[in-house]
């Protein structure tokens, strides 16, 4: 049941992103940012769950799969959505607003996952989630600028 809810949530976010969110980005930009955003998520999860055991993942197979899907699809697509809004906003306040909103959203999803039994924060402080999610969004920004600087070098924009 919980797995189905998360599959549905992932699908909805994915579809909504392609209808409303991606318009400002080229499809290869979306691809690059989506893959890139998953890298820190996978590494952090491995470090926190397998090595440090500060976060424990449910031993139920369906809940584990829900966590895998969130980690591989939902979080990266939300990072791409954030980047798409961030790059096309000129106001610094708006950029900061998006950063805060998406940090809260990612932290909210993490704690929703905990309340539904997907994971458990064993040795954890709430603000660590907030800081890590903000870092996740932060490190995606220089990658986006780097990629765009090469992607659009000497060519007209395709978006």
């Amino acid at each position: 049941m919980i797995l189905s809810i998360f599959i549905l949530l992932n699908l909805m976010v994915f579809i909504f992103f392609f209808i409303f969110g991606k318009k400002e980005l080229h499809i290869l930009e979306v691809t690059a940012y989506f893959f890139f955003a998953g890298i820190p998520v996978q590494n952090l999860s491995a470090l926190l769950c397998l090595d440090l055991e500060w976060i424990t993942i449910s031993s139920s197979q369906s809940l584990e799969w829900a966590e895998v899907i969130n980690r591989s699809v939902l979080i990266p697509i939300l990072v791409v959505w954030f980047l798409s809004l961030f790059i096309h906003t000129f106001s610094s306040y708006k950029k900061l607003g998006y950063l805060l909103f998406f940090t809260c959203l990612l932290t909210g999803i993490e704690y929703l996952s905990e309340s539904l039994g997907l994971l458990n924060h064993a040795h954890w402080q709430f603000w660590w989630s907030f800081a890590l999610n903000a870092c996740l969004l932060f490190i995606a920004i220089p990658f986006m600028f780097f990629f765009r600087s090469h992607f659009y070098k000497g060519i007209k924009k395709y978006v």
Partner: protein
Amino acid sequence: MFNFSWNEWFVILTTFISIVLFLPFSRRFPLVVTILIWVYTVIFIETLDYIMGARPFNLYDFLDSSKYEPILVFYHFVVYPICSYTFLYFYDTYQLRGWKLVQYLAVWTGISVFYEWLCLINGVLTYRDWNLLYSIPTYPLASLLLIGVFRFIKSNLPPEIKSQMVIKNQMK
């Protein structure tokens, strides 16, 4: 926390050799394509290794324990992307299709299985519920997926970047 022994040296040695072998091919694709191949390979292999090697399946262990050892970043960030790049280099340079592609996939599968066996005897990899034979079909599947991603990238490249690839093709 982690113990540094021969298997860790094997990882470092492999990384060094792969970088040296990679250098002659390193400027085949435009940087944008290289970045896309790199991020795809890293996320694909990390996700697969996490699912298969740790949770939920726990089929094999890397190095000395079932934990995630930081030295694995050499494999995930350097060795695998270099393999993907080199694989695509020959695929794209010689425009391998049909029977030639089947032969090419067979050769890469052979090399990959041989290297996996080297990892086994050098203690980099320890099987729990896995077998070298199970790996044989996974390599051509992963290669076909990589080709699919590469073709998707190529078909969506802006003409200016695509033309750089054509120029390099003509120069070969």
